[in-house]
Structure formats: structure tokens, C-alpha cells
């Protein structure tokens, strides 16, 4: 093949991929749109545990007296952590990808995808990102209401660059979350008891990503270990940026680590997929 023909075919591939991308994203949108009522209800009701957490932490800080700092958090920072984390998780919950992938591997639905000329991981990524965009859009209103209601306690980044870094790190965190979840899902190629496995790892995923409570709360030695894991960079690191607990250089370094994790996890998923499909028995079908 001549070099120009090679570039030509590469270009065709790229165009085809982009076009496909748009189609798949449209499906993702339609899917999210079909359940918008459920989504709004869910949003209202997910605020119940949030309010409970806020009341609980208020009571804890009351008990500790004025000026109490737990793991370097004062009351407002702690409450803001929960508020912003909740909004973040609401807008971009990507962990359901592991259930989808596992199920499709287990009951043979994957066959349908293997027939199609699309990359399975990218296909799932498209669907997810469409729902993230949609979720973010739907979350705007409740988030605004919450921000106004909590204006006296909500801590916001002081500097413009912190807002930008927070946005970027949240975006990169979503990618990390997606890839981690994809890897957990793809493990169904090897793990026989995959539904039990998922149930087992999900709470750990939630805790490690800092969705349950700020990770500084756990004993120092354990904390250092956790910080070396990719989950920390899913939502805990963006929260650190948001609360202004990192200076400019530390923020940049963290963003760099996020990119490295994305590359590493992307590679891992690709490897898992390649080896998994070979092993795949196409049960059911």
C-alpha cells in the first residue's frame, strides 16, 4: 500500500469513527431522555442522604465546640465537601457501566456487538459520555438551588485558575471512573461469580474514590496507601482542588497523574478486552 493510500484509509477510518460517534451519542441521549422523569425524582431523593449527612456533621462539629477541625476540615469545608461531591456524583455516575458490561458478557448479548464494526469500549464510552453531558445539564438546576440554599456555608474556590483546574480534574476524574468501572466489568471474562464480585467491590470503589467521606478521615498510614491508587483521582482529587487544599504546583502535578492513570487504565482495558474476547464463549446468544 502506498503511503498516500494509507493516509487516505486512515482518514476514512477517522471520519467513519467520528460519524459513528455522533450516532451512538444520539442513542445515549435518547436513552437518558426517556428516563428523565425517573432521573428528576432520583435527584430529589438523593438529596435526602445528603441532608442527613449535613445534619450529622453539623451535630458532630457542635459536639466538638467552636473551631474544631477534623483532619484539617472546619465545618463549612466538611459540609461543602459533601454538597459538591454529591452534585459531582449525580451529574456523572459512571459505575453502572460495570453492570452493563458484565451482564452482556454473561448472557451472551456481547455477540451482537462483536458482529458490529465498532470498538466495544469506545461504544460504551460514547453512551456514558452522552449520559454524563445530559446528567450535568439536568443537575444544573438542583445544583443552583442547593448552592443558593447553602450560600452561607458553601466554600468556593478563591482563584479563577482553581475553578478551571476543578473543571478539568472533574472531567479527567470521570474518565478514570469510567475506565476503572470498565475494567471491573471486563473482569467478567474471567471471574465466574461476577455478580457477587461486583457487589463486593462496589462499596470499596465508593469509599476509595472519596464518595462516602473525605479520605483524610482514615488512619494516616492507610491514607498514604490509598493515595497511590487510581480511585483517589476519580473524585477525591477534584474535591481537593475545589476546596483549595492544593497549591498551583500540586494541582498541576495531580492533573498530570490523572492523565497518566487514564493512559494506564485505557491500556489495561484494551488488554483485558483483547484477551477476554479470545476466551469468550458466547454463551446463550
Amino acid at each position, binding site marked *: 500500500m502506498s503511503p498516500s493510500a494509507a493516509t487516505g484509509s486512515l482518514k476514512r477510518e477517522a471520519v467513519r469513527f467520528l460519524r459513528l460517534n455522533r450516532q451512538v451519542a444520539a442513542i445515549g441521549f435518547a436513552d437518558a431522555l426517556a428516563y428523565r422523569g*425517573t432521573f428528576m*425524582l*432520583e435527584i430529589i*431523593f*438523593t438529596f*435526602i*442522604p445528603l441532608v*442527613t449527612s449535613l*445534619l*450529622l456533621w*453539623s*451535630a*458532630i462539629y*457542635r*459536639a*466538638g465546640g467552636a473551631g*474544631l477541625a*477534623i*483532619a484539617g476540615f472546619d465545618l463549612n469545608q466538611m459540609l461543602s465537601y459533601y454538597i459538591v461531591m454529591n452534585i459531582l456524583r449525580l451529574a456523572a455516575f459512571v459505575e453502572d457501566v460495570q453492570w452493563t458490561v458484565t451482564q452482556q458478557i454473561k448472557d451472551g448479548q456481547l455477540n451482537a456487538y462483536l458482529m458490529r464494526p465498532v470498538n466495544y469500549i469506545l461504544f460504551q464510552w460514547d453512551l456514558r459520555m452522552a449520559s454524563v453531558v445530559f446528567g450535568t445539564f439536568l443537575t444544573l438546576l438542583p445544583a443552583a438551588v442547593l448552592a443558593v440554599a447553602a450560600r452561607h456555608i458553601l466554600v468556593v474556590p478563591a482563584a479563577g485558575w482553581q475553578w478551571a483546574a476543578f473543571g478539568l480534574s472533574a472531567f479527567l476524574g470521570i474518565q478514570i471512573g469510567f475506565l476503572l468501572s470498565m475494567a471491573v466489568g471486563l473482569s467478567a471474562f474471567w471471574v*465466574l*461469580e461476577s*455478580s*457477587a*464480585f461486583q*457487589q*463486593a467491590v462496589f*462499596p*470499596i470503589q465508593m*469509599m476509595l474514590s472519596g464518595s*462516602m*467521606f473525605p479520605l483524610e*478521615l*482514615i*488512619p494516616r498510614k492507610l491514607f498514604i496507601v490509598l493515595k497511590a491508587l487510581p480511585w483517589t483521582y476519580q473524585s477525591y482529587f477534584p474535591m481537593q482542588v475545589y476546596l483549595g487544599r492544593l497549591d498551583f504546583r500540586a494541582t498541576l502535578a495531580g492533573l498530570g497523574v490523572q492523565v497518566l492513570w487514564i493512559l494506564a487504565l485505557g491500556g489495561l482495558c484494551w488488554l483485558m478486552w483483547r484477551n477476554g474476547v479470545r476466551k469468550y464463549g458466547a454463551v446463550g446468544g
Partner: protein
Amino acid sequence: MIRHLRLWGALLYNCILREMMFRANFAIIVLTSSWWFVLNVLMFAVIFSHVTEIAGWTKYEVFFLVGTGNAVMGIFETLFMMNLMRVPETIRTGEMDFYLLKPVNTQFLISARYADFEAVPNTLIGFAFMAWCVVKLKAAFSLPALAAFLVFVVNGVTLYYTIMFVSVTISFWFMRFHAMSIWWQLTSLGRQPAEIFPAGLKFVLTYCLPMLVIVNFPVKAYLNRLPLHLALWGLAVTVAMLAFSQWFFRFALRRYRSASS
């Protein structure tokens, strides 16, 4: 009544046999089902390394509450949850016909048909943890307190069941309404120390939407902090809700028209 209890026994036995067919899966779930509980305890342990009490509750009292919450929810999950989650689907597909035809109370049958033994170990861990807390509390152990505690645990499970049952009954009108997942969020209210809530909200959660009766009352009964009028209210509301759930179910059944075929 006796007949229903005997039937319940047979149904439970039947479910154990089914469960044992998938032993490995069962074993893993047994090992991992208490993760949420462990994480919850861990969080409170860390909190109590910074403060000595939360809204008047000491460390082991809060632990006791967390353990009770785990046990109450565990019993509910074992006996009822799977059944209630199936109700909307049962109505949608017309499968309800089969339940209506059986010569037993229909509410009983659709509520107790399937038991989920995956939650049993978690429940037992909850009770073991409570026992440990009681030792650590160094409160004088007394049989009446224990009896009161157990009465309110049963009371709590029953009340929780009736609230959930009424919610899923609503799916006779709205078939796509997944009441369970929404109520699930509400339970987070009931598992907290009651005193963290502002007075108004606490009143609502005691009298209007009695989530506090479910987990807080057993603990308070054991710690001898439950005034008599509240104790009576807790028992009365459960009986009333049980009667209401039966009436509401019969009322809703009139709308059932056996889908498809």
C-alpha cells in the same frame, strides 16, 4: 394464623434449598455483604477519634444504633425485600393471577413467597456487633431491657415492611413507579441518632413519617430512654399501618385487571 405460619416455614425451607444450588455465589456474598456496614462503623470510629459524643450519643451508643440498623434492615431484606421488589413486575405481567388464586391471604403470600438468605449473615453480624457494644457500654444488663429491645426490633421490621408495602401497592396505579429505590433513600434518615435532627423534622419523623420508630426506638428502649407515651405510640402506629396496608391492598386490587392474555 397457624396455617399461615406453617406455610411460611415451608416457603423458607424451599428458599434455602434453592439458594444452596448456587453455593459459591452464596459464599462470596456472605463474605462481602457486610462491607457497607464495616465502612459505616469505620467512619464513625474515625469521627469518635475527634469528638466524644454526637448530639448526646456516646461512641458505643452510636455503634449500638448502627448495629441495630443493620440487623433491622437485614431481617427486612431477608424476609420481604425481594418479594416487594417483584410486586410492580407481578402486576405488569399479570402474574398476580396466580397469587390471587391461592387459598391464603394474598398480601401474606406476595410478601413472604421468597426469602433472601444472603442478608442473614449480615443480620447476624449486626446482632453480634450489638452484643459487643452492650458489653462496652458497661450498662447494667437486664432482661426487661433486652425484652423491650427485641419487641421494638420486631416492631421496627413490621413497621418498615408496612411502609414499603403501601409504597409498592401504589404501583397498581403507576406501573413504572419504583417505590422501593426511593424509599431506600429515606431509610438513611431512620438510621441516624434522632437527636441530630432539628425539632420540627424530628417531630415529622416520629409522628408523620415514623422512620425514627424503626431503628431508634429499639435502641432507646434498651437504654431506657424511651418515654412511655412514645413507646405506646411506636407500637400503635405499627398496628395501624398493618391494618391500613391490608385495606389499601384490597382497595388497590380492584384496579387490577390482569394484563395481557
